[in-house]
């Protein structure tokens, strides 16, 4: 089985794709910072940032629909976390409900905060999706390293990317083997089997980790991680990064 869903579209060619990964990483970070630092309720600023990002997505040739679809993945988590804010925030009551034994009331401040959290999270995720859709994982890792992220962390990320597919394959084979031997087992028994599968996936991954480490030792690994640098920070990167930064500030200030 072959998967490449992590950095789909990263092999397209566009102006954005050709930028140095470091430029993109820093720009993405600046974008997220700008969004996080915007006070709640400034919808025009959020709209401005959204338009900026939309322009980038169009330049990058990544299908807009794909980015929007991917961004939905994060929403359940955000909503789950922020769903209860309107009920617990003090303030002017917008509505009151009787739920069995409790009386709960929703406040306007609470609703504003909910809207704020969801919007900010969604915009940040859009930015990150654009980053991962325009930068291959290898380049992204190189960029992280170039920005001074500790090599051990970069190495762990690269192992994760390398073996996630292997683990997914193993899980799939185990599932197939399970389904071909279980017929009609429903409910609790199935959950028990699922537990076993997860357990043995863990053991297998652990053992693979040991074997990979041995393979690293065999090629002279002594705990130091060495890499060759092959990133080039060009003039275009400088101007683009600068322009993006200015646009962010201008949007933030003028639409305040």
């Amino acid at each position, binding site marked *: 089985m*072959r998967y*490449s869903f992590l950095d789909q579209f990263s092999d397209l060619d566009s102006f954005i794709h050709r930028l140095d990964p470091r430029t993109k990483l820093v720009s993405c970070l600046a974008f997220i910072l700008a969004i996080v630092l915007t006070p709640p309720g400034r919808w025009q600023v959020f709209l401005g940032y959204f338009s900026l990002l939309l322009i980038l997505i169009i330049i990058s040739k990544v299908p807009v629909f794909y980015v929007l679809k991917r961004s939905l993945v994060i929403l359940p988590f955000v909503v789950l976390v922020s769903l209860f804010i309107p009920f617990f925030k003090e303030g002017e009551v917008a509505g009151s409900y009787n739920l069995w034994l409790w009386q709960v009331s929703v406040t306007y401040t609470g609703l504003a905060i909910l809207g704020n959290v969801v919007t900010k999270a969604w915009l940040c995720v859009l930015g990150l999706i654009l980053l991962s859709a325009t930068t291959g*994982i*290898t380049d992204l*890792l190189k960029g992280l390293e170039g920005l001074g992220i500790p090599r051990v962390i970069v190495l762990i990320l*690269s*192992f994760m*990317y*390398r*073996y996630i*597919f*292997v683990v997914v394959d193993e899980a799939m084979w185990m599932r197939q083997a399970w389904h071909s031997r279980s017929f009609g087992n429903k409910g609790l028994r199935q959950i028990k089997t699922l537990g076993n599968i997860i357990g043995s996936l863990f053991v297998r991954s652990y053992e*693979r980790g040991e*074997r*990979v480490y*041995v*393979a*690293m*030792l*065999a*090629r*002279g*690994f*002594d705990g*130091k991680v*060495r*890499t*060759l640098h092959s990133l080039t920070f060009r003039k275009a990167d400088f101007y683009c990064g600068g322009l993006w930064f200015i646009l962010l500030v201008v949007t933030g200030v003028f639409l305040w």
Partner: protein
Amino acid sequence: MRRTLVYSPCGYWGISMVEAIEKAKAIEIENLSFSYPDGHQALKNITLTIYLGETVAIVGPNGAGKSTLLLHLNGILRGNSVVKIMGLPVEEKNLKEIRCKVGLVFQEPEDQLFSPTVFEDVAFGPMNMGYSEVEVRERVAQALKWVGMSGYEGRSSHHLSVGEKKRIAIATVLSMSPELLVLDEPTSNLDPRSKGALTKLLKHLPMSKIIASHDLELVRVLCPRTVVIDGGVTMADGETTSILSDYSLLKEHGLAPED
């Protein structure tokens, strides 16, 4: 180089007396025993000498201790007695040099290829050896050329076929220019065509080779000398032709089907 008369079972006497004397020992193992932490004794009193330039097959059934023996050749496992590689005892202070001289190719390429791209995997060894960037790039290009995989530098390993993965796995140690190539089950999981291509590739590599396998077809083609191991004990050591024609020996050690 020690000037001693050596007995070599693979027929150096037949070549010439001088050459036999000049042959340097690539591997010296004397009375090596090894037990895993769980108490299972994997190797019992193994004594084995392999000379530079030889291609030796280590054959035996599943669980005979072949892989365990191979892991002793670059100091990943260490048993009760000291193994000598090119005259160097396998000890902590020699490990780096020994791992440079002994290229170990594991059975499962998925374990050997752990980097995001082929280039980084092949460059891993040379980089750990501390070569300059220019030399690392040269070595990677050369190693990939040897295994016929030039142009695969930017590919990611999980998109390759098993045969391609095996070739890259071999390239990852060739880039360190080892004097001794140690392969664990090089032909497992390969279809006949990939197996044929791999056999041809191995035949053209000039360094000494130790191949652990129960693929007797491969052994017959590549290795003039064969060592049979079963239950952690050396059962036979000699010319491949005579060992492979000893049907009862093969049957006894799980290398031929029971009839």
